[in-house]
């Protein structure tokens, strides 16, 4: 045991030595850039302000990084600067004041995105900047689920703990319309609105061209034009419908194709029966795989719910986002149906045939796209926000826990520190972890060291260095395998 510890200490030393020169190089770079700024900006105050706020570095090291888009980097490090991902990869140079979260043996996923939720942010569903409660336990529970961004109403908001600033990513994303079999007149009216608006838009675009030549040309009349329809047709907002019924879904698909927009449909329980039509219409759906709906027995055709709903829609090219039935944290009813069981809800879609990557996408990048924030969250890529979760296993496995959650390059959740799940399968203490990850165990080298402690001590350092060399070679091999 003592020998092992000593070996790991030497390994650390070796690593440190390896990093040392490059760290210095990094500092030099920093120094240069600072002097440049000073020369450039004559304003001394600005320079002072910059000095006050040094760059905030944060790294999640040595985890298996599931970056999204089927990208997997085993034992890689994610480095962030001021909340944005600076680099993902191996042998990264970490600046001296980097806070490091060692994720060796754990998995790193992008933070989950709950397409819609309730009450995670505080007591209000609007004015988040003024009303957010960044200490409330519902937010903590959501982070414990892995959710780092959520849709609330038409806004996309980050679960930014310990801060009341800059949590809103996007606002007014959706224009909500109703399309129901029970109100045929409304359907006609909506179609008319779209028709008038489309006609207006055509005239307006023509006018935009013509007005360059004839400057006194009158702008087309906006009479009868619906602003929601206009912003949908202009691509500023997404048209959102709530519908379960096959006929309604077909109607929405037709409407969308007729006027050239991509609808977002919440519910879509009978979507599997018209998957191809929805796919052709470029629809996206928000599903709850465990929702139930009986088949209408008076109809001969297919209907009702199917566990294959998500899978069939996905195969037809429909973007699928998944959300549990209860959008808040619910302590009543059957356990496992509220927002803090998002991955478990997704599992039911996997059970119905949805590929696992699509399942992960359905709670990361797809909802991020729907909320119009996929340039910032939903996958781990350089330049995006450093919102990630570190789990002790496959995110889709029912026994997996989020161990740490990171938002904007800042650790906001630690399973062992919050009391909700700390008692369940406690994280092994660091020493035990070091033991688990001892070189002698991970690599199939003969147990010489144990037998000949005394002999080895002299040559140990060199041996360790050699081993490191071996390891990096192996990693390269793995990479190549991955590429193949």
């Amino acid at each position, binding site marked *: 045991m003592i020998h092992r510890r000593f070996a790991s200490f030497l390994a650390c030393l070796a690593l440190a030595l390896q990093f040392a020169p490059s760290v210095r190089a990094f500092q030099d770079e920093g120094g240069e850039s600072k002097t440049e700024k000073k020369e450039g900006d004559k304003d001394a105050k600005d320079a002072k302000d910059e000095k006050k706020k040094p760059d905030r570095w944060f790294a999640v090291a040595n985890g298996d990084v599931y970056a999204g888009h089927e990208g997997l980097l085993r034992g890689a490090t994610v480095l962030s600067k001021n909340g944005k991902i600076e680099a993902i990869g191996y042998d990264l140079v970490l600046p001296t004041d980097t806070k490091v979260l060692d994720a060796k043996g754990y998995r790193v996923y992008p933070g989950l995105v709950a397409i819609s939720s309730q009450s995670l942010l505080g007591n209000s569903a609007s004015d988040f900047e003024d009303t957010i409660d*960044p200490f409330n336990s519902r937010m903590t529970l959501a982070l414990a689920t892995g959710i780092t961004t959520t849709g609330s109403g038409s806004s996309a908001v980050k679960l930014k703990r310990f801060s*009341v600033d800059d949590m809103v990513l996007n606002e007014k994303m959706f224009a909500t319309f109703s399309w129901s079999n029970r109100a045929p007149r409304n359907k006609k009216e909506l179609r008319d609105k779209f028709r008038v608006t489309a006609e207006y838009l055509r005239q307006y675009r023509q006018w935009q061209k013509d007005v360059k030549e004839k400057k006194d040309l009158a702008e087309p009349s906006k009479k009868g034009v619906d602003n929601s329809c206009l912003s949908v047709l202009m691509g500023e907002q997404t048209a959102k419908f709530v519908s379960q019924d096959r006929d309604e879904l077909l109607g929405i698909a037709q409407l969308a194709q007729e006027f050239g927009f991509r609808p977002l449909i919440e519910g879509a329980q009978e979507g599997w029966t018209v998957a191809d039509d929805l796919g052709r219409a470029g629809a996206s759906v928000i599903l709850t795989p465990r929702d139930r709906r009986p088949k209408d027995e008076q109809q001969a055709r297919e209907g009702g719910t199917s566990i294959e709903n998500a899978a069939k829609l996905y195969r037809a090219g429909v973007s699928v986002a998944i959300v549990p039935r209860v959008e808040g944290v619910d302590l009543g009813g059957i356990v496992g149906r509220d927002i803090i069981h998002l991955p478990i809800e997704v599992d039911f879609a996997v059970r119905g045939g949805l590929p696992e990557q699509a399942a992960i996408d359905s709670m990361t990048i797809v909802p991020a796209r729907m909320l119009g924030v996929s340039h910032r969250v939903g996958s781990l890529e350089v330049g995006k926000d450093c919102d990630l979760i570190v789990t002790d296993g496959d995110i889709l496995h029912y026994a997996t826990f989020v161990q740490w959650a990171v938002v904007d390059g800042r650790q906001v959740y630690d399973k062992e520190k919050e*009391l909700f799940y700390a008692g369940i399968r406690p994280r092994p203490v660091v020493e035990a972890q070091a033991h688990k990850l001892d070189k002698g165990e991970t690599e199939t080298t003969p147990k010489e060291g144990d037998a000949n402690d005394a002999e080895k001590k002299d040559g140990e350092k060199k041996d360790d260095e050699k081993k490191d060399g071996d390891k990096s070679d192996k990693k390269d091999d793995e990479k190549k395998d991955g590429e193949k």
Partner: protein
Amino acid sequence: MKQKLLIALAPCLALGVARADLQAYRVGRAETVSHGVIEHAVILVEDGKIVTIGEDLPIERGIPIVDKPEWTVVPGFVDCYTRIGADSEGGEDMSPEVKASDELWPGADDYAEIIKYGETTLGIYPAGNGIPGLAVAVRTKASSAADMVLKDPAYLKIILRADSGSKKRVKDGFKKADDYDEKVKKAREKWDKDQEKKKGKKDDKKEEKKDEKSDEKKSAADDPKPDDKKDGEKKEDGKDEKGGFVPPEPDAKSKPFVDLRKKTLRALVSINTAADYLHWLDVLGKEDIHWDLRCNLGRPNADTDMYYVVTKKEFDLDQDGIGDKKVRVVIEPLLNLMPGTMRLRNMAVEFSNAGAKVVFIPRSDNLFDHKNWLANVAEIVGAGLKRDVALRAMTLEPAELMGVADRVGSLDKGKDANMVFLNGDPFEATTRIQAVLLEGKLVYGEVNQ
């Protein structure tokens, strides 16, 4: 020290017989709060003020002595945040001009009761939500409302919650102060112009002298002081033409916020949760004012999450924590449950260790809680709060919060003789209050030999 005492007593001796209001107290122990503990303390009181205090001082013959070697004396307790003796009706919105001093009623039975518990100074705040108005510092016993007042206003109460409404109210308040500044600026410009016109009319010979004078005036008026006001009044009367610039008076609604910026008034910000604190810092922005916090730890069914914002360091906050800001926190002597758990936290200790200044108030305004105030604080001392911090939190700290520390809150020469006599250590369970002095007068108990 002895010599000083003799000098102090010299005029009395000259009178032959000691004056009726001169009284000496010799007790086993005096907790001065401001400068530690004095064993075998002698306190000499004259005209309701402490003339001198020290260890084992000789007392001139003729001065009546209360000799209680088994007693301990502490300063009269200061409850800086109470509505006792007043109703709980107030406005909902922004009314910073409302004064609690307008609703004082010295005849309330409660005052006669709480003075028995050693509370000699109170801070009565205006009821209501939003920004309810200005609190007043009062003595607990007086014959009229005007006589009760020690300091008015003592502080401005602001209620801040994590909602747009309450944040907007604060912003509006400071906007009013901005408007006032604008008004002063305009008045100033107008005044300057008028001066120039007057100057033009003056004779050529006197011009040089006048110039010098007006320069002086300007420099004096650059920072408007109360002195200027007097000059201005004279000028309006037309008696004195030399008068400087008079800034216009702010109206009642904006005055508190103008005073906050001038730092002649403190704000006491009432918050319930950690989120409220961050929102307060958010709405405060770069405003530089004196402020303290009232954290309600005793809400019904309260799990408090205040521990999140005690220091910046522990949870890596964007902002400074309450301890880092070194402000006062007015709290009840209570142990709180961590949310969702059965773990108790001693917030008073956490605040105190982090650098914040703890101010205790009774758990509620029920007489029962006033009666048990000292016992409840003793519980917190038992749970780890430093003894001197606890005693200070009931005396000098609230006095400083209300700006009356020059008169009450500690046993010091020149301060009001507000004293509480106990038959032992204040934080021992068996200790009871034996007598209470308010400005030298015995208002409770017996001190007969």
